[in-house]
């Protein structure tokens, strides 16, 4: 019996159990072909209605939770270098430093790259659909790390607000280090990653030999 450590795992277990029950009821109907009496109809209502509904609900939540994790982000081959660097215990890149921070857990990619607004989760997932489309249309068969494809670039400039979710610009230690530029940082006139620029050192666009982006 596998141990359950999180709500996500519990939801996955519920979804899987209900899917199996629904499949069993379906198989029973297909094999036995019973008369459509009250019992058969009730069984089919469970198998075709109640259990699939539970699978949908729990499966959606569990899947959404999984899409926030680093292994999911790295499951497209073009993300390989990013994932390897983020999980490298010797790397000093921003991605690796933040991934090692236990407060980020497995969700280091999502925490920094999700839109920080009311419907941020939705707009982020919409962009995720765009990623999937680009992956299928532009990076299929482009090598193990997608090196034959166009360089990967971020859709919009990385906002300081993402950093300021955790790094308060009013903290004493922050002001000691950034006192001269704090207003520019708050107004996004100066970007955090202008100075802290070792973010993804193994990024596709930074590696020699990568196909260069054509600027029109």
């Amino acid at each position: 019996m596998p141990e359950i450590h999180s709500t996500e795992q519990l939801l996955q277990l519920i979804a899987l159990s209900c899917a199996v029950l629904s499949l069993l009821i379906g198989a029973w109907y297909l094999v036995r072909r019973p008369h459509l009496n009250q019992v058969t109809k009730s069984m089919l209502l469970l198998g075709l209605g109640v259990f699939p509904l539970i699978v949908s609900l729990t499966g959606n939540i569990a899947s959404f939770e999984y899409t926030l994790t680093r292994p999911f982000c790295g499951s497209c081959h073009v993300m390989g270098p990013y994932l390897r660097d983020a999980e490298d215990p010797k790397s000093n890149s921003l991605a690796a430093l933040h991934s090692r921070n236990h407060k980020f857990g497995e969700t280091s990619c999502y925490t920094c790259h999700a839109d920080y607004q009311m419907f941020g989760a939705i707009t982020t997932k919409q962009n995720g659909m765009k990623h999937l489309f680009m992956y299928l249309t532009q990076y299929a068969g482009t090598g193990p790390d997608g090196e034959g494809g166009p360089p990967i670039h971020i859709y919009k400039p990385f906002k300081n607000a993402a950093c300021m979710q955790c790094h308060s610009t009013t903290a004493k230690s922050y002001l000691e280090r950034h006192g001269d530029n704090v207003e520019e940082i708050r107004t996004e006139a100066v970007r955090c990653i202008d100075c802290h620029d070792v973010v993804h050192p193994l990024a596709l666009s930074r590696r020699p030999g990568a196909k260069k982006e054509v600027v029109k």
Partner: protein
Amino acid sequence: MKHQTAKRMVFYAVIGTMVAMIFMGATIIYPHPLLLVVAMSIGQGIAMMSLALYLLAVALDLQSQGGAYIPYEEPVAEEPAPPVEGDGPPAA
């Protein structure tokens, strides 16, 4: 006739649900982005259509048995029986 159609519809609904369940179950075991998108959009669509088909089949089946809708009929009011002579109270 309607009963046979209903049985065929239930058959397709069961097949559809089973396909959807396989998709969704596979996503939970192997959550690859493409499979996840397919399962959570097409898979759920198939499951919903299968459920609708099943409910329609049940409605059809009930209709064929005449048990789906029983119209309410006003009870016919009985006319009072005409008084029969000699039925009155006995004379003193």
